[in-house]
């Protein structure tokens, strides 16, 4: 029964996986431009961000088509409405990776303790994005919960980067715009962690029917 609908839902899942993979790639490439001044990689991040914009529209159209044609209820409705919410966060992740890549153009390949911390922070944020999308596709409650728990680690890194930057300014007043640029980059990664958290919250909704915010 409903094999066509099941195929469409499977297609929705693969589109979500593809979007998740693009997010990871965008963040990973943007992170690469922190230590190396690479215009080619920067261009690639911008391209991927554009692709994510397009994917968001495609998945949105697919979800609206499913709502219209299949009039889903229960688990199917939750899966489709969660996907509709998640793609907005994924598209924002792409934008933020692009913002990071644009700022790193002013760093000129600067490397230091702060950039190492930011790179570690980026690795955590990428992990959160991967896990949140995996949790959606596999309907894995424990993995979604792990993403929520992980956000504290990313937030912790942000505090560390901030402290390092304060120390940087204290040691040398002539550092120019570096600390500000690095702080913005760190803030973007912290926001990416928040987006992954949002995604994980919608995953939990798609499994349980209860969104964290509605429990308040």
């Amino acid at each position: 029964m409903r094999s066509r609908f099941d195929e469409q839902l499977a297609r929705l899942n693969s589109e979500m996986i593809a979007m998740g993979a693009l997010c990871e790639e965008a963040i990973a490439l943007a992170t690469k431009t922190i230590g190396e001044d690479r215009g080619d990689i920067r261009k690639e991040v911008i391209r991927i961000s554009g692709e994510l914009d397009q994917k968001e529209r495609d998945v949105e159209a697919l979800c609206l088509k499913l709502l219209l044609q299949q009039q889903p209820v229960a688990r199917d409705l939750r899966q489709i409405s969660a996907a509709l919410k998640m793609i907005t966060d994924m598209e924002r992740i792409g934008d933020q990776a692009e913002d990071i890549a644009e700022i790193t153009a002013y760093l000129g390949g600067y490397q230091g303790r702060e950039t190492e911390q930011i790179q570690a922070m980026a690795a955590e944020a990428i992990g959160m994005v991967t896990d949140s999308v995996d949790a959606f596709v596999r309907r894995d409650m424990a993995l979604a919960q792990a993403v929520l728990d992980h956000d504290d680690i990313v937030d912790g890194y942000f505090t560390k980067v901030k402290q390092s930057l304060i120390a940087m300014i204290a040691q040398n007043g002539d550092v120019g715009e570096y600390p500000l640029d690095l702080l913005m980059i760190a803030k973007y990664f912290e926001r990416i962690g928040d987006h992954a958290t949002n995604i994980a919250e919608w995953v939990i909704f798609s499994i349980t029917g209860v969104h964290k915010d509605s429990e308040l």
Partner: protein
Amino acid sequence: MKPIITAKDLCLWYGSAQALDHITLDIPENSITALIGPSGCGKSTFLKTLNRMNDLVEGVKITGTVTYAGKDVFATDVNQLRKEVGMVFQKPNPFPMSIYDNVAYGPRTHGITAKKDLDQIVEQALRDAAIWDEVKDRLKKNALGLSGGQQQRLCIARALAVAPKVLLMDEPTSALDPISTSRIEELVTQLKDRYTIIMVTHNMQQAVRVSDYTAFFLLGELVEFGATESLFSQPVDRRTEDYITGRFG
């Protein structure tokens, strides 16, 4: 929620075939309850049992109890019961007589003969069924000249004319176009302030749109009963989930 109809351990057999299997269910007053389930699941049989439309059929055996307003329906006079628990069928079935006489038929059989009283009852019932404005100028015309949607609203008016407390509806919109369907749905929603409505429907979206409570029947059993919103968003039983999401049935 105060129940107006209560079924307890209700079993029903047509000959040797069991159609209802230990149904225990409270129907809340002044609300709309949808009965859903695949064909042959017992939902229509259950509906008909509530105003005794099948216990007089030959070969039918019933055990368990059904009470209406605390009274055993099987010990109640059938005419009195059906006055309080009215029925609207799947296919509009106006009598081949005038619109007025269709609506006045029930009150007349219950002894109301004064024209003034009948006029008042007919107008009120037609107004309550949201068809008064469409027929007020042709009350003496034959009801069979009305459209399908109008005929169904006339049948609802006819049921309302005897001032029932409960309206049973067996797929009341399945023979109607979408506009007539939405008028009936609108009407049913307005009527629940004054009546209790129990509706069999094959249209899941209709159950979601209209009803407050939903009962899911399968193979003569009541699988799940609950608030419509929660049954359609987080069904408890896997069979309910599979049915409402179209995985079987």
